């Protein structure tokens, strides 16, 4: 039990008493609980099912909140994807030209890509080109029409 800092406060005295009782209740045996419920006229099985209902209702509410959060996140993510998708050209030659153009705008990124892929864009396969574009897209490094080239 925690030490009370101001024992002269009757509210703290009462709270300390109730806390001590709570700690005592924690160690009650099953038999004591059932006997005391019966002695006070409480139907243990009815009370137990009421408590279970209280717990499950909290559970349902918590799950609803989690689902609402997940739905919000999904909508946010979906909006971002919808906004970005059309920027990568469909045809392979245009995709390659687009990648070259994007890398020319960002020399540091070009150096990193060249180093990681061990070669220049002209030597990339179409699949490599698409993969690099998707990675740049995911990193937010593709031009959105407003972004400026690296100086």
């Amino acid at each position, binding site marked *: 039990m925690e*030490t009370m800092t101001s024992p002269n406060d009757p509210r703290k005295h009462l709270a300390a*008493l109730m806390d001590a009782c709570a700690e*005592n209740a*924690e160690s009650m045996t099953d038999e004591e609980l059932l006997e005391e419920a019966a002695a006070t006229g409480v139907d243990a099985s009815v009370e*137990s099912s009421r408590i279970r209902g209280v*717990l499950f209702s909290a559970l349902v509410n918590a*799950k609803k909140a989690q689902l609402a959060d997940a739905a919000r996140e999904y909508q946010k993510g979906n909006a971002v994807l919808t906004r970005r998708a059309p920027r990568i050209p469909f045809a392979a030659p245009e995709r390659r030209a687009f990648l070259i153009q994007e890398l020319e705008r960002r020399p540091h990124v070009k150096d990193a890509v060249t180093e990681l892929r061990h070669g220049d864009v002209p030597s990339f396969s179409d699949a490599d080109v698409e993969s690099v574009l998707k990675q740049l897209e995911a990193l937010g490094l593709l031009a959105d029409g407003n972004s400026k080239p690296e100086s």
Partner: protein
Amino acid sequence: MASRTATAAEEYATDGEVVAAIDALTTADTLRLSKVAAFRARGLAAFGLGTSADDLMQEAITRTLNRTRRWRKTVNLVTHLTQTIRSIANHARDELKGGTVAPATSDDADGKLDGIVVWSVAPDPERAAAAVEQLDKISESFESDPEVGLILTRLARGMTGPEIQADLGITQTHYETIMTRLRRGVDRREGWRP
């Protein structure tokens, strides 16, 4: 054989495991949880905090599921929930240290009673007078039990259980026996559920 540290996923319960554990609670488990919550709620009521035992149990479940208080599976669920309830009650009282408590907000991380209406009453002479009256009545009901009187006096001085045992020179078992009489007396006065 190489030893292996349990991962967080193995150590803490999933939502499904929490549901299954609630389902598996015995009648005595639910009564124990409810009784502990009732006494914690009475402790909060001393400060005018209008939080019921049901509110405390629900908040403990909410915090378990939203991972504010994760349930380590090696711990019994009732123990986890009673510890969480104690923590919630302590935080609620801490809020009163500075004076008035605002209604609870929706931020779980700050230890407030989210979603629970909390009334503030810190410097309230009426509340103090009500507490004195309640304490007097409890004391009166134990006039014929001097051992309980000794415990009540020491709780009023702010002593902890082990401090009381040391001060009175009694064993923990003896202390628990007296406390059981005290708890039952309070229960008789206050009713099964607040």
